[in-house]
């Protein structure tokens, strides 16, 4: 029900026990380790440099993770949707230690997978390289000589390409111009395309240099050299490409053959991560020649367990101190089954700061109701509650935070069911639509309020909930101030505002404007005048007290007047609760749109029913998803902005114990 009290723990133990003690602490997950600065001149205590081993562990763990990724690509794991909720696999201490013995074998798997992956990458890179080579040779495929052919005894041959489309005559003409002394020439065009022409030119050996020169001036380019006839070379490349494809397949298959080692690799990843975490703490310990010191925060209720576990196994000195005011003590919340699920909501705002109460229980009381009002459909609520309940019951190893979230939605589902009953909404107006479309009957669903046809009545309900919510916030503020004996704060920050806002509401209920607008009955005039007096007392009090930290009376009154202006904030806070109406209506109207769409196609026999069911299923799933999201976001907003604005500022630091930080396995205690 509250913020757990913390103890400052100091352990002083023998140096040889340090790893065993740290392993025990890591398994118990009950201590947040703190370290102080020690300067280099300290003659007794020093720190150990463990960065090298820690780095090695981190590297091993990263390699194992990489191997898992490779494995997942080569042999995708068949995972159900549920596996996302399943949580880590529990392992006993004995199994863990037995498996840890085999870590070298497991690391061998990892290295083998990494090596195979490297091969795979190389084979994959080969394919585009070979393909480019084949493409470069294709224009030469009709040539009967290898591309390295340089001529016969008496003749010289030039094989290459011009970067434009040329005919034999063009080439002959240009060559004649560039090398006027040469007259014996044989020009063979192999291929001529739009932007290149590949040719074989032969000449007498004595003219070789002149032709070479002339060709260079014509941007003549030599092809890639190969000693085989182009067709044979292409065939050789194709074989090479086939081999690469085969190698890719076989390497992938070989990687996939490690699929049954997946659990081992997961284990080794976790194993090295745990050791890295342990070494990180080891490096922060203050150690002397024979002893070492661990300091940390422990929730007071875990202290006896720690004392027993440590005291029975090791020779050590253990002390639990009450933390001093100046210490930055971490916060751990503990709540009963009803409130604990919304701890996540409080946590994502901020943990309670120093001296603040844990707001989880009041938040929980309102959260389920506010969420329910916004989703407001019996069937949606039932779907949510049942599915989350089944998940929670079915998956025993679920992580506590996931379990809390799902439990929260389970309870929110109950709130949704209640408000669905209140507004007579079961998949929107599905019962009425089905009764009239398929059975030709009119069905009236009993309901207390019809938000669509009586929006003002619904709005009054929303505002009433809002007023209760806001006053609950003010009361908590009052309670906290009284608990801390800040009586002046209690009166000026809570009581005066309650008087002012409460008085204004009472007074408002006697005016024609308000009662007429909401079609409410006027309350008695005496209550109205009581309200007026309350409001006036509140207003004067706020003007006098709100600037109480200023000594100067003029300044103080000005600040007080400005404080009084905050009453408009209460108006906007209150109006903000109209979102309960808006989101509630959104759910019911969209579901009736889908029901109506379904009923329009339901006329044709058999096919109509099928279409009705299809539209019904898809439409309502969509509506549930979108509106559950809206309800979640806006329930949070009402808590964070309107409710917390009255009493809660947070700023605490979450308790993060020295733990295993594993991803796949969890060691059972």
């Amino acid at each position: 029900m509250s913020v757990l009290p913390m103890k400052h723990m100091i352990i002083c133990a023998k140096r040889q026990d340090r790893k065993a003690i740290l392993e025990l602490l890591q398994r118990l997950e009950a201590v947040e380790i703190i370290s102080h600065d020690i300067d280099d001149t300290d003659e007794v205590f020093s720190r150990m440099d463990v960065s090298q081993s820690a780095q090695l562990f981190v590297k091993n763990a990263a390699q194992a993770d990489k191997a898992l990724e490779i494995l997942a690509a080569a042999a995708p794991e068949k995972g159900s949707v549920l596996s996302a909720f399943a949580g880590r696999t529990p392992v006993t201490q004995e199994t863990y230690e037995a498996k840890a013995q085999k870590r070298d074998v497991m690391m061998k798997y990892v290295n083998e997978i990494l090596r195979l992956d490297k091969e795979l990458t190389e084979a994959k890179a080969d394919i585009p390289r070979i393909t480019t080579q084949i493409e470069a040779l294709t224009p030469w495929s009709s040539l009967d000589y290898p591309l390295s052919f340089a001529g016969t005894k008496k003749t010289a041959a030039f094989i290459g390409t011009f970067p434009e489309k040329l005919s034999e005559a063009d080439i002959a003409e240009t060559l004649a111009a560039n090398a006027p002394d040469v007259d014996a020439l044989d020009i063979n065009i192999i291929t001529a395309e739009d932007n290149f022409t590949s040719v074989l030119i032969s000449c007498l050996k004595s003219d070789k240099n002149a032709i070479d020169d002339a060709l260079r001036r014509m941007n003549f380019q030599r092809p890639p050299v190969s000693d085989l006839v182009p067709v044979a070379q292409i065939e050789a490349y194709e074989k090479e490409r086939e081999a690469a494809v085969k190698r890719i397949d076989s390497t992938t298959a070989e990687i996939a053959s490690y699929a049954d080692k997946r659990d081992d690799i997961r284990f080794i990843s976790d194993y090295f991560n745990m050791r890295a975490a342990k070494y990180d703490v080891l490096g922060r310990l203050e150690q002397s020649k024979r002893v070492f010191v661990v300091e940390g925060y422990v929730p007071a209720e875990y202290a006896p367990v720690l004392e027993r576990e440590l005291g029975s196994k090791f020779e050590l000195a253990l002390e639990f101190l009450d933390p001093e005011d100046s210490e930055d003590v971490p916060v751990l919340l503990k709540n009963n089954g009803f409130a604990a699920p919304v701890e996540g909501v409080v946590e994502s705002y901020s943990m309670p700061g120093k001296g603040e109460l844990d707001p989880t229980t009041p938040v929980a009381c309102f959260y389920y109701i506010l969420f329910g009002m916004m989703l407001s459909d019996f069937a949606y609520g039932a779907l949510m509650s049942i599915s989350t309940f089944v998940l929670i019951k079915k998956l025993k190893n679920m992580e506590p935070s996931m379990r809390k979230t799902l439990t929260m939605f389970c309870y929110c589902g109950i709130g949704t069911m209640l408000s669905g009953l209140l507004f007579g909404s079961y998949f929107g107006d599905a019962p009425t639509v089905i009764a009239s479309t398929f059975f030709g009957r009119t069905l009236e669903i009993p309901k207390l309020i019809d938000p669509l046809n009586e929006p003002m009545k619904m709005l009054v309900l929303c505002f009433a909930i809002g007023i209760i919510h806001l006053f609950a916030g003010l009361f908590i503020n009052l309670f906290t101030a009284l608990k801390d004996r800040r009586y002046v704060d209690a009166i000026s920050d809570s009581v005066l505002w309650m008087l002012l806002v409460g008085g204004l509401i009472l007074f408002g209920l006697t005016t024609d404007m308000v009662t007429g607008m909401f079609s409410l009955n006027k309350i008695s005039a005496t209550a109205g005048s009581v309200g007026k007096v309350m409001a006036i007392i509140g207003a004067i009090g706020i003007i006098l007290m709100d600037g109480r930290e200023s000594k100067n009376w003029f300044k103080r009154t000005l600040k007080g007047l400005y404080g009084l202006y905050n009453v408009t904030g209460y108006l906007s806070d209150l109006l903000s609760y109209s979102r309960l109406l808006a989101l509630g209506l959104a759910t019911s109207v969209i579901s009736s749109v889908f029901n109506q769409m379904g009923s329009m196609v339901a006329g044709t026999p058999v096919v109509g029913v099928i279409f009705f069911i299809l539209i019904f299923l898809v439409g309502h799933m969509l509506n549930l998803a979108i509106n559950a999201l809206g309800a979640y976001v806006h329930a949070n907003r009402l808590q964070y902005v309107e409710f917390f604005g009255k009493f809660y500022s947070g700023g605490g630091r979450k308790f993060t114990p020295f733990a295993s930080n594993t991803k796949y396995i969890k060691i059972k205690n």
Partner: protein
Amino acid sequence: MGIALALLGAASAALFAGIGSAIGVGRAGQAAAGLVTEDPTQFSRALILQLLPGTQGIYGLLIAFIALSNIGLLGGNADMSMDVGKGLMYLFACLPMAFVGLVSAMQQSKASVASIGLVAKRPDQFGKSMIFPAMVETYAILALLVSILAINGIH
């Protein structure tokens, strides 16, 4: 003529609020896709933040639906001889949702984009990041409220 004006009102609520949400969700979606490229585990958070500017479209649909059913166009017994005054009343009643829906969705998407940036750097601050876009939504809700009350007030 009156019925045409009333229909214009209903249609513009769905039209403008829908346009606003489409722009908003699209813009936030680009940022969300960027975040997921860097960190695929943030998908569900990015999705929630992307969907926040989408509600205006739903509110527009809501108003259009209520207006259509009040005019009788949904039940098939529309008052085809509705006078111009009444038609204009429906049109004006739908305007808050139409305009506030359009602008608030676009503005909300800017807050959503910024919040997605926040989650990219500080994934642990998701709870707070959700609130900034939700603040903008308040005004769409107030417009929705006015439109509902106004449509229901027309007899």
